[in-house]
């Protein structure tokens, strides 16, 4: 975890509303897939708070330490970020959160991302593929224009990656969780299978239901409004079921990745 200022190297439009921003940093910091950063890239105090984004990648690129993240333009902060250009400076805090560590004994991984949820799903997928696991990725979007034109998605073979759109304008037509359901029906060894999902609350609620129905160990990457991102404001808590009852845990610190069975998703 470090707090630093980096320089924007590129800020590419990768889908209708999404950008891939690359920031040159002083060095590459170790991170786990699923971890995130807090980013601030504007002067003045409005917007005030930095914004959380999943780390898409952090590695040497052409000899330079490059941190990249994907963001969807939804409001004031992301709209400012979308206007940044090469040479602009951004403040970064990270890596933050627990990130994803595959539990022992899992060989097959089904990953599902809805909407911008692909930003947390793809880094997890990549690291699992790299460590030789059997990975299946399902990405859902509303329409073709939302499919990110980004390395992983463009290069992955069709067996490995399934893309769905609600309107059928790209890939399979339908809701991603419907395809996930079919996928889960075919799972043979449930104990060796793990499900990981990131997406809008409604999707995660559905995933929770599927997880329970099929009895598959499932992890969800949650989002919550954040002020600090590193555990000091207690603003981002969610209720977690534990043996001692329900406790409030911080999405930014104990999360953002939680066992599906332990957390309550609010719409």
């Amino acid at each position, binding site marked *: *975890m470090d707090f630093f200022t980096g320089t924007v190297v590129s800020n590419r439009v990768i889908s209708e509303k999404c950008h891939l921003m690359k920031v040159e940093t002083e060095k590459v910091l170790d991170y786990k897939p699923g971890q995130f950063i807090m980013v601030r890239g504007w002067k003045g105090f409005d917007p005030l*708070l930095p914004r959380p984004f999943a780390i898409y990648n952090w590695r040497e690129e052409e000899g330079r330490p490059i941190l990249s993240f994907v963001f969807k333009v939804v409001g004031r902060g992301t709209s400012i970020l979308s206007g940044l250009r090469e040479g602009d400076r951004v403040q970064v805090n990270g890596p933050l959160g627990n990130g994803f560590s595959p539990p022992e004994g899992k060989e097959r991984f089904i990953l599902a991302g809805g909407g911008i949820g692909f930003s947390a799903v793809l880094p997890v997928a990549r690291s699992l593929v790299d460590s030789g696991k059997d990975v299946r990725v399902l990405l859902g979007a509303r329409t073709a224009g939302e499919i990110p034109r980004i390395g992983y998605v463009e290069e992955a073979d069709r067996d490995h990656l399934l893309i769905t759109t609600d309107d059928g304008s790209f890939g399979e037509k339908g809701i991603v969780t419907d395809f996930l359901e079919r996928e889960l029906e075919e799972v043979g060894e449930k104990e060796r299978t793990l499900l990981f999902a990131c997406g809008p609350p409604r999707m995660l609620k559905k995933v929770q239901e599927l997880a329970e129905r099929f009895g598959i160990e499932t992890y969800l990457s949650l989002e919550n409004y954040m002020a600090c991102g590193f555990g*000091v*404001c*207690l*603003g*981002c*808590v969610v209720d977690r079921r534990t043996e001692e009852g329900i406790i*409030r845990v911080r999405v930014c610190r104990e999360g953002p990745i939680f066992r599906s069975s332990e957390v309550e998703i609010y719409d």
Partner: protein
Amino acid sequence: MIDLSVQIGKSRFKNPVFTASGTFGYGLEFSVFYDISQLGAVTVKGLSLEPVPGNPGPRIFETPSGMLNAIGLQNVGVREFVRSYLPRLRELGATVIANVYGKTEEEYASVAAILDEAEGVEAVELNISCPNVKEGGIAFGANPLLAHNVVSAVRKATEKTLIVKLSPNVTDITEIAVAVEEAGADSVSLINTLLGMVIDVERKRAVLGSTTGGLSGPAIKPVALRMVYQVSKKVKIPVIGIGGIMTYRDALEFFLAGATAIQVGTANFVNPLSALNILKDLEKYFEDEGIESLSQYVGSLAEVES
């Protein structure tokens, strides 16, 4: 280099840059970023007699140049704090101010009594912005008499330096400040958050789980500075300035208005190094300007002839 140490009650703090309660956790998270023993003091999240789960979410929301929070004073309870967190803070060399709150006078006094015996707690800060359940929920800090009584009760329970943190949601904050001074407070700190609200137009409901919440950040700085200025003129005990302090320039404004020390709150979220940067920049400024004594600088605002 200029001696920045300040005396508040029995305590000598090595410098006047503190952190504000609720914005610094229990201090531990910040030690990843810098050595927190450099700060004048760190004020920990408000402690109550028993652990409190706090409010359901959403608990925070950004507003123009500010933020609303309705954490609901979630905390591990004073005993767990003393057992598990205080030792680690002591290891880190931090000077600790324990922020305290309760629902009754007795509860405040009990928490203070426990802290009175805890080694490594330099001072106790009473958050009197909380509702007094015995008085129909009116905040202790909204009424001079209630404020006086709770401070008297706590004063009897602790020998430690006693700071009373004032609520800005009052007609005349100087009246409350004078009341708590008379009740034996060693210092007043101000301001706590302004009561605010934000509505989610889509869902037609208050954004915060608790409907209203506390406004903090640069947006409130002009109000905080005005109150510090007013209170400094009315009390003899040292005043600690809080509210929207983001840079050393903001801190200087509070010193000029009469604050002996300052607390950095929301700025910690915007930049985790804020408090440290403010301290370093202050040192540099005083040096560059040849200012030799902080105490002479404090309150040195020129009065406008009128």
